[in-house]
């Protein structure tokens, strides 16, 4: 500092730092502190009353047990499938719902409403609808001569069936984000493109898609994080089953917690948090870099 101010800044500020305090206390005590504590407890065998330091044994177990590895793979697959479907369907629906189609208000409401409904309620409803023989979906398919699969009972399919329900519930959010992005594109671009003689497809490819990149970045980031953390829908529909076929890291954390393996459960948390770190951080950086390029 070049010159010390002669006036003491003792007057109370208009922007008092203590405004941070209540929020900071709650956030630190109930979110930050446990997060830091998890780094230690993941290295222990832990009963909540005492903990024995065992190094990376929990993590070693995580990458040794086939069902835990499968949970890890499932988590990534689930996130990839749900976020890519949400991007494609969300964009498509947003294009449809910003065109001058009839009953636009009705359509927007109907697509968005599931976002607000209880996940457990949705999970239970679709578990009933997806029943292999008595479920409405397969009965409907039977009417047009298709034999529906065992959506939630076939181990190869269960995870993706849950992912589909996730998309059903979440695509409304992706759609409204895209709608906000599309509406923000200035009309001038389309008019300029029309004067240049662009076709509808060229319009989409060269104007709409690049200019809605911020929306795409948001949808991907949000649904990817959501997908990696997903628990409630899986728990309401399959509880990770059949077997371990639809387990994700989050459901493994819960199962280990229930079984009393607190150290292992916490190691699962750390794995999930590292997973999010190594996938989402580069992903957002990539998406934002491209965005800055336009």
């Amino acid at each position, binding site marked *: *500092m*070049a*010159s010390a*101010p*002669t*006036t003491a*800044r003792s007057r109370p500020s208009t922007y008092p730092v203590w405004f941070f305090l209540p929020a900071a206390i709650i956030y630190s005590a109930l979110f930050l502190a446990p997060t830091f504590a998890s780094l230690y407890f993941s290295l222990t065998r832990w009963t909540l009353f005492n903990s024995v330091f065992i190094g990376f044994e929990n993590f070693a177990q995580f990458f040794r047990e086939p069902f835990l590895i499968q949970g890890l793979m499932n988590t990534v697959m689930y996130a990839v499938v749900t976020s890519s479907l949400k991007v494609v369907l969300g964009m498509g629906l947003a294009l449809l719902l910003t065109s001058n189609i009839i009953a636009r208000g009705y359509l927007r409401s109907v697509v968005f409403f599931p976002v607000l409904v209880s996940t457990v309620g949705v999970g239970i409803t679709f578990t009933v609808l997806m029943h292999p023989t008595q479920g409405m979906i397969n009965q409907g398919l039977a009417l047009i001569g298709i034999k529906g699969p065992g959506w939630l009972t076939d181990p190869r399919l269960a995870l993706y069936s849950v992912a589909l329900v996730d998309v059903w519930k979440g695509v409304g959010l992706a759609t409204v984000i895209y709608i906000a992005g599309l509406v923000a594109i200035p009309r001038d671009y389309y008019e300029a493109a029309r004067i240049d003689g662009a076709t509808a497809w060229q319009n989409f490819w060269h104007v709409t898609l690049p200019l809605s990149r911020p929306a795409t970045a948001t949808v991907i980031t949000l649904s990817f994080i959501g997908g990696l953390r997903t628990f409630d829908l899986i728990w309401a529909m399959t509880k990770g089953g059949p077997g371990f076929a639809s387990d994700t890291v989050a459901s493994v954390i819960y199962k280990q917690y229930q079984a009393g393996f607190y150290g292992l459960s916490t190691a699962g948390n750390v794995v999930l948090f590292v997973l999010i770190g190594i996938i989402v951080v580069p992903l957002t950086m990539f998406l934002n870099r491209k965005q800055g390029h336009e």
Partner: protein
Amino acid sequence: MAGLEFKALHKTYGSVPVIKGVDLSVDHGEFVVFVGPSGCGKSTLLRMIAGLEDITSGELWIGDKLCNDVEPRDRGIAMVFQSYALYPHMTVYDNVGFGLKLARTDKAERDRKIRDAARILQMEALLDRKPSQLSGGQRQRVAIGRAIVRQPEVFLFDEPLSNLDAALRVDMRMELAKLHQDLGATMIYVTHDQVEAMTLADKIVVLNGGVVQQVGAPIDLYQRPANLFVAGFIGSPKMNFAEVTVQSIDGTMATVTSKDISSVSVAADTSRMSVGDTLTLGVRPHHLTLDASGTLVGGVSLVERLGNETNVSLKLPSGATWLVVLDGDHNLRGSQALQLAVDSSTVVLFDKTGQSLLAPR
């Protein structure tokens, strides 16, 4: 009664100085205008008076109170912002009365003061509206009303007219002048518009780079600029400058010459120059007249005919371009040669450091 006194005021942001030692005194009831290019520190100085910026060093006296550490509300000031800063969630009535409410003025008294202010500004009909329902000029009135109602000793205006369109600006300028007459309070007014400065001010303070360049009555600044910066900044169109050499000195008269001007005799402070010195000569575009025996010759490069006057860009032999404003309409053609006389009584000479060499009065 409240005048202001600045003693060696300094302001630095981190290690960047923005106000570099300002000394100034303002008498009670004076209308003082701070002018200068953007970034010259005029708004910062105003905000230091208001108490919105800390004073790094020096003293600020308002009336007979040292105000460096006094809260804005206790300084006896009111401020009108460039953006008006009306509270959007309050009606005009509440906007004007907010300060009184905070001061716990009783309700009847408050109502009386708000209605008085509204009457002075002829905005009684607007009291129940929200700011979003007002035009720019009306918002301006509310902002002024909010200041008046506090009955301050000192009014501070931060470029208050710059968001208005040209016609409204002229009207509001006149109203402000009238308001100053009626209230008799001290007013400090920041602007970059020199017409506002010339017409409103009792006293103009020209700032540049955080330093006061000159303080004085508007016409003094125009006729007797202290240095090249003030000469160039005050007056529109800008003063023309040329490098000249001192040919001879005779008492208080100096005769100078250059490539473009054969010779001009100027009254100046001859004690600070000697024959052969290189000086800068300044002459305003309005002080050049068509004269077949004139000392200045140049070619017309651009003509703007305004009807009542004619603006001519003149290419001089040295390659410099001067602007000439001729009275009345002249139908001049490009590249036509003009011969002009320089009104030597208005010419100002400047030394190498840019200080003017005016003859003492």
